């Protein structure tokens, strides 16, 4: 407890120092901060023009969302509230609102402790999908500030804004606009601006006011040095080891010998520090807004017939085709959701997912496929709303259709060959349509296999068993001949097949060709081993 209090008081003092040093938003720049303490490695000099101003370096703005976990909860929550998550078998509080905090509930305590501290606490599970959704929404909004946006999961967004400063009228205006845009989404934000992504992230996590702004890379180390190492979000075990060495701030960590630091804490820890101070550039995954098509239609009356649903669906599909044609793109996945009238024991909606083997944008073809899928679905209740949503958009590969129809004057089957298989599978299920292939095997039942239909597959003859008498039809499983050879005339045989001892499926069989009373020729065998029963395996169709 004493240690925790000490750490907290240290942090408070540090924050006070920082807020003193960092400038208010309307202060003139460049920011003047105390000279950095001597560090082990000097930051390489940034590209500067004759006047000493930094020109080409990056400038990263960070929007940190400290209360994203709470913001992601449904809005109907009551105070005080805590969000819990299962961590190594224990329900732990990971976020609390102000009212709960006032009662003493802190993140990190177990659920039992939290409930003991605050009896009226409302406990909610975490909503990670909604958190991510909010972050993606914010990222899309951020694309209006700069094309270089990057996500830092789970709760931060990075924007490279060097090129946007002039357009938005300076740092203050840009940050104010960014804060306003974030607030419009109902999110609480902490901003920071620094020449490297990691430094901006570290600064943003402290939640300082005014917003910490570091424009000059030369000053970066000086600003970062007094920050506690916890802002780097290193693993707790690494932080504990550093603390036991007496290293609590970033500046102290930077002063450690590089080789020893890498040896004790790993190369990636050293790389993090290098990226933090801008010694090594950090490559970030750019965020690009995902595009998809979404449309809905609310009919004037409730639909209970498949055919009427399809009729209302048609305009949506036409829209989809226009949308895709304008972008020269196509889809391979389409999701149709039919919302039902709310009633007891009825699901809220029926969803039909269409997956295609090849990209498609033609409304008529999609309608035909959706009709097949729908025909297999029973509507539990009348439909009140139709929603159509595309999967990811794929680039459209234009194909020249043949002048002749397939089969006409030797016209090849191009698209038709995949369309047919898609159409059959849409109605009959994916396993109902299959191709054949040969397997070099002596065991008759293993000499063939089911394959994905592919017209372009190379033709090959089996290496084994050529010129042997084999039936055109095979039974899935050899059947017992109930009456033995009664009523059968043996025509040929025996042909002995004895193989497969190496994989446990060994067979020792004598094969015969027999004719039954009706004139059908059968392929039968008798096991060499007991019980030496006769079995039917194939029919010479």
């Amino acid at each position, binding site marked *: 407890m004493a240690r925790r209090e000490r750490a907290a008081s240290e942090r408070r003092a540090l924050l006070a120092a920082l807020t003193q040093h960092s400038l208010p938003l309307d202060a003139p720049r460049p920011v003047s901060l105390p000279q950095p303490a001597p560090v082990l490695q000097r930051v390489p000099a940034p590209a500067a023009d004759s006047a000493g101003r930094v020109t080409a370096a990056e400038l990263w703005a960070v929007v940190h969302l400290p209360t994203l976990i709470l913001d992601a909860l449904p809005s109907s929550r009551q105070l005080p509230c805590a969000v819990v998550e299962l961590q190594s078998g224990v329900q732990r509080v990971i976020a609390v609102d102000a009212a709960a905090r006032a009662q003493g509930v802190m993140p990190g305590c177990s659920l039992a402790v939290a409930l003991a501290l605050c009896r009226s606490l409302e406990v909610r599970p975490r909503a990670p999908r909604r958190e991510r959704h909010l972050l993606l929404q914010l990222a899309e909004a951020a694309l209006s500030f700069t094309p270089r946006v990057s996500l830092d999961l789970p709760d931060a967004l990075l924007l490279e804004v060097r090129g946007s400063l002039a357009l938005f009228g300076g740092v203050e205006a840009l940050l104010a606009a960014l804060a306003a845009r974030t607030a419009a989404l109902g999110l609480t934000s902490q901003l920071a601006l620094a020449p490297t992504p990691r430094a901006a992230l570290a600064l943003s996590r402290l939640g300082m006011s005014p917003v910490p702004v570091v424009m000059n890379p030369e000053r970066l180390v000086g600003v970062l040095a007094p920050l506690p190492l916890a802002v780097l979000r290193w693993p707790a075990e690494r932080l504990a080891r550093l603390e036991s060495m007496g290293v609590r701030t970033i500046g102290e960590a930077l002063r450690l010998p590089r080789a020893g630091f890498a040896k004790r804490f790993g190369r990636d820890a050293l790389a993090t520090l290098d990226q933090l101070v801008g010694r090594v550039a950090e490559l970030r995954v750019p965020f690009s807004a995902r595009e998809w098509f979404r449309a809905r239609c609310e009919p004037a009356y409730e639909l209970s017939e498949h055919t009427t649903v399809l009729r209302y669906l048609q305009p949506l599909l036409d829209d989809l085709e226009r949308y895709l044609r304008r972008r020269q793109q196509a889809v391979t996945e389409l999701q149709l959701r039919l919302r039902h009238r709310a009633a007891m024991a009825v699901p809220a909606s029926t969803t039909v997912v269409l997956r295609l083997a090849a990209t498609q944008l033609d409304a008529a073809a999609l309608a035909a496929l959706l009709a097949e899928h729908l025909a297999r679905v029973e509507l539990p209740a009348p439909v009140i709303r139709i929603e159509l949503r595309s999967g990811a958009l794929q680039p459209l590969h234009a194909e020249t259709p043949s002048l002749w129809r397939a089969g006409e004057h030797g016209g090849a089957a191009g698209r038709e060959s995949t369309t047919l298989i898609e159409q059959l599978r849409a109605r009959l299920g994916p396993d109902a349509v299959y*191709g*054949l292939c040969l397997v070099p095997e002596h065991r008759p039942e293993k000499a063939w296999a089911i394959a994905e239909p592919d017209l372009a597959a190379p033709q090959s003859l089996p290496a084994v068993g050529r010129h042997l008498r084999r039936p055109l039809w095979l039974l899935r499983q050899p059947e017992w001949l109930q009456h033995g050879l009664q009523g059968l005339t043996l025509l040929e045989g025996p042909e002995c097949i004895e193989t497969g001892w190496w994989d446990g499926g060994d067979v020792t069989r004598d094969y015969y060709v027999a004719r039954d009373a009706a*004139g059908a020729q059968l392929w039968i065998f008798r096991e060499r081993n007991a019980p030496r029963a006769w079995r039917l395996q194939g*029919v*010479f169709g």
Partner: protein
Amino acid sequence: MATGSSTLLELLQHPAFWRGRSGARVETRPTGFAALDAGLPGGGWPEAGLTEILTPRHGLGELRLLLPLLAQSSQAVTPRWTSGIAPPFEPYAPALAEQGVAVARQIVVRTETPLWAMEQALRSGACAIVLGWARRAQPRSVRRLQLATERGRCCGFLFRALSSARESSPAMLRLLYEPTERGCRVRLLKSRGGTRDSIELAWGERSAQPDSLSQGDGAA
């Protein structure tokens, strides 16, 4: 009067002329059996039309009747599918390959609604040959199949039970298949402009066809 007779012959070639049994002109593909070619209208299986084959039961050798056609289709330059719709057993790929049939061009469809699947396959134009097995078929759905073959330019074969011989059928060709001691007997129940004879085939007998076929005579 050589010129006169040649004019007459030209005139008789005209498709609008109907001259009893030899008048109907259909595009055909050779069956691979000389006796059968001679008996069928146009000298072979209809290129785009539905053929019904009635058998007492499955697996009596009726597929051997079509093997030359399947092998011939496998050698077509432009690949198209050969579909088996609801076959009674599994088509055995090694035996097909042995007979010169391209295994990669075969697709098998397992379904409870063979007539629907068959119509899709026939109509799509993606199949060269469609073989379907259906226990019951209304004349109306057989007519749909017949129209689909014309649209998809496809050889359709529908295997049905003997009992349906009494019903009328809109198929282009109807055969009744019976196995015999050394081969089979094919009775033509319906053929546009063909005979109504029965044709005896012995499995050894083939017309001059690719070597790969005669090799496999002893087999299957």
